[in-house]
């Protein structure tokens, strides 16, 4: 077996183990993923004329993920130059292949070619670790929002830009959707699990610890959300009920994200838990049940570690 084929087998094994550890039968994913991808693609293409661009954006994010420096350094260290480039070409091709196939099926050859060009162009691409420290208003109460803000500052800038566009074109729905976007971005700060030491070190009871985490999250979200909120209620006062509903759902979902993280800690949130979270976001009254549920699980889980 060549080093390349062994590497490919290892990658498959790693993926298999990751899915298994997420609490789902990997074969279920292998069968359902193509179906979900096809179904999702049909839904996207039937709803918007910008589907091609959305596709390119999703594929670009995936390609940039493959360009992380630690990963590339590892590949360079292990393989010789020809093998390194073969792996990079293979990975990028496999990443864009489903998108290209569907674009061709939808008679969008320009987007398909563009995506292949992007895959080729990002081959020598290497994301650089941040050198300059981005100041944040969350530095005094580390760490989730301080890190999340720095990692996803681009998403927040886009949200602020969308709010400005919404106000400019007088689109209240866009402005309100922007509030929800910010909530989702900030909730995502809790998708990453810190090492056990970062929980162990607290001199708090599990309930106090969880309360502190939720309180900090709510306060920090308010700092980010407040300017947007003021703009929304100032320019679209007639939509105050919708704003209120989004806020209630948003803060509830943020609290849920914090609690879900510690319910699953130190592992990531499992797929069934993720489905419950998604259902609570889509149907917010579920939060009344899911928040106490995740709180109870998190409290019991953390009491073993804190």
């Amino acid at each position: 077996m060549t080093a390349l084929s062994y590497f490919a087998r290892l990658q498959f094994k790693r993926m298999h183990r990751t899915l298994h550890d997420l609490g789902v039968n990997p074969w279920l994913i292998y069968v359902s993923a193509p179906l979900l991808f096809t179904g999702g693609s049909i839904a996207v293409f039937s709803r918007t004329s910008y589907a091609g661009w959305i596709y390119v954006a999703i594929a670009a994010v995936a390609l940039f993920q493959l360009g992380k420096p630690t990963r590339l350094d590892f590949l360079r260290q292990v393989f010789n130059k020809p093998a390194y480039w073969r792996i990079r070409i293979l990975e990028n091709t496999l990443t864009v292949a489903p998108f290209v196939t569907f674009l061709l099926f939808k008679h969008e050859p320009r987007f398909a070619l563009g995506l292949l060009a992007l895959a080729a162009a990002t081959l020598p691409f290497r994301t650089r670790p941040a050198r300059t420290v981005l100041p944040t208003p969350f530095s005094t109460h580390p760490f989730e929002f301080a890190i999340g803000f720095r990692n996803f500052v681009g998403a927040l800038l886009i949200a602020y830009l969308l709010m400005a566009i919404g106000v400019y074109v007088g689109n209240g729905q866009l402005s309100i959707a922007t509030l929800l976007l910010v909530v989702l971005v900030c909730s995502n700060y809790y998708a990453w699990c810190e090492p056990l030491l970062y929980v162990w070190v607290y001199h708090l009871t599990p309930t106090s610890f969880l309360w502190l985490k939720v309180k900090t999250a709510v306060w920090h979200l308010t700092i980010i959300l407040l300017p947007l909120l003021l703009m929304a209620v100032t320019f679209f006062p007639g939509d105050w009920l919708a704003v209120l509903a989004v806020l209630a759902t948003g803060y509830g979902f943020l609290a849920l994200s914090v609690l879900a993280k510690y319910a699953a800690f130190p592992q990531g949130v499992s797929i069934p838990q993720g489905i419950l979270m998604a259902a609570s976001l889509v149907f917010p009254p579920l939060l009344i049940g899911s928040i106490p549920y995740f709180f109870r699980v998190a409290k019991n889980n953390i009491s073993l570690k804190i």
Partner: protein
Amino acid sequence: MNIEVSRLTKSFGGNEVLSGIDLTFRTGQVYGLVGRNGAGKTTLFNCLAGMEKHGGNVIAEVEPLKDRIGFLQTEPYFPSRLTGREYLRLFCKARGVPDVGLDERNVFDLPLDRYAQQYSTGMKKKLALLAILLQENEFFILDEPFNGVDIHSALLITEIIRRLKSEKKTVLISSHIFSTLKDTCDVIHVLDGGKITETIGEEDFERLEREMTAFAIGNRLDSLM
């Protein structure tokens, strides 16, 4: 702080890593722990810190012990895009101690406003050590505190350990550099096969070093070189 460890056991599946550890730690004493790679030193530290479930008992003079332990891990972990200053603040806030005067107390001259993940190995170690010193703990577990640090910092860490002793703190250290243990410890425990096989006072440190050298090197290089 006095701590009594009795019949401490730890298994991972069917693999027993620690089998019946009995130890006593007294206030103001510095203890060393030596053992080969895989002997169970880090597992023992994790058990003492309460980060691993275990059999047997760890009874401290003041409970809960975990809130009075400063635990320096072998390879401290730092999330990306977290500055040194934020790391120190986090550790202070976690224990409810003031997070003021960090610059004055930055004895290692660390660049606190840079991302900790960009620090060198030695700087990371010093940052993690500084964090647990700021927490004003009573019991310190230092797993390889001299790893990767420069000569000046090693001298400073040695002096810090001596200062902790004079301030009646209890310290437990593991180090692969025997001279650092010899310079700082009152007692050295030898961990082998999941058991404490020897407990040695200062008067026998030289003998222990000779025995370890003989065991580690012996004639095993003859087959290689």
